[in-house]
């Protein structure tokens, strides 16, 4: 294994430094396209620029949660075969969930601000908003469960089950909330007039999604490495403990 040169950035490798640089440039371009180059909307005016942040954020958040669920499932399968197998899936699940929560938070914040200018209120009991806020709380709970001290595999299995159940629950939540709102919503449906996304706006949205994806990947990769470092630290401490137990034993023998 190569030694880390300089070790100034414990979680960085040449490959991810490039990724970080690409992410920075991509974001700058995204700001330029989203805030300056793309046109204002006929209906929404300048407010439409919220779209380029709001929509990619929720897509990324969903993507991250899908990743969490997939890795959780793989972790459970692997941990069944070998009692301490598949820990990297657990790490991936954890880092993706955390990044997902960050972007869900951004979605909610931008959505509420956007709602303020287009609907006139911060909050509507809109199906999507309600589902998103429940999603946010669910994965906050998931992260809370992850933080609790426990044997790594015990915690891994527990959180993996939670991730799977939560994920299965997403469509149920969405369906029920959606149905609830469509049954009631008569007046408020017309409030959220959606801009027609075509041409430059369409391309800007697509590009923003790409940029946000790059940023999210950087975050997930680095978060993963921090978790790995923490595990290495714990393992090293354990090795030291075993060694000291053996030594103390020999002295007494």
């Amino acid at each position, binding site marked *: 294994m190569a030694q880390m040169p300089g070790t100034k950035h414990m*979680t960085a490798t040449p490959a991810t430094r490039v990724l970080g640089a690409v992410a920075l440039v991509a974001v700058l371009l995204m700001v330029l396209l989203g805030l300056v180059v793309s046109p204002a909307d006929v209906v929404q005016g300048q407010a439409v620029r919220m779209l380029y*942040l709001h929509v990619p954020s929720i897509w990324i958040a969903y993507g991250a949660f899908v990743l969490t669920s997939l890795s959780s499932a793989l972790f459970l399968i692997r941990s069944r075969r070998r009692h301490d*197998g598949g820990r990297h899936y657990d790490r991936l699940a954890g880092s993706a969930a955390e990044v997902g929560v*960050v972007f869900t938070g951004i979605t909610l914040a931008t959505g509420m601000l956007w709602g303020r200018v287009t609907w006139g209120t911060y909050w509507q009991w809109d199906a999507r908003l309600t589902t998103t806020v429940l999603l946010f709380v669910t994965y906050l709970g998931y992260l809370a469960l992850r933080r609790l001290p426990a044997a790594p595999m015990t915690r891994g299995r527990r959180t993996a089950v939670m991730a799977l159940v939560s994920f299965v629950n997403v469509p149920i939540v969405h369906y029920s909330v959606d149905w609830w709102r469509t049954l009631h919503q008569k007046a408020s449906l017309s409030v959220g007039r959606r801009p027609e996304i075509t041409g430059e706006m369409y391309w800007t949205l697509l590009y923003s999604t790409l940029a946000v994806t790059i940023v999210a990947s950087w975050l997930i990769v680095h978060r993963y490495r*921090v978790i790995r470092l923490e595990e*290495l*630290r714990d393992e*090293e401490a354990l090795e030291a403990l075993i060694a000291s137990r053996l030594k103390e034993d020999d002295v007494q023998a």
Partner: protein
Amino acid sequence: MSEVTTVATGWGLSFIVVVTYALWIVGRGKTVGRELGIGGQEELDPGSDSSTPADS
């Protein structure tokens, strides 16, 4: 709030959140790395890492 300030607030807030989070990750990595002892630091490439069965 006007449309422009709203957009500015939204984007600004999001950037602060992401940048803070990124800085926190890097800082945490450094702290834990220091606790680990820099010398024994192995290269952490997720590509090779996830394919190594010895990582548990």
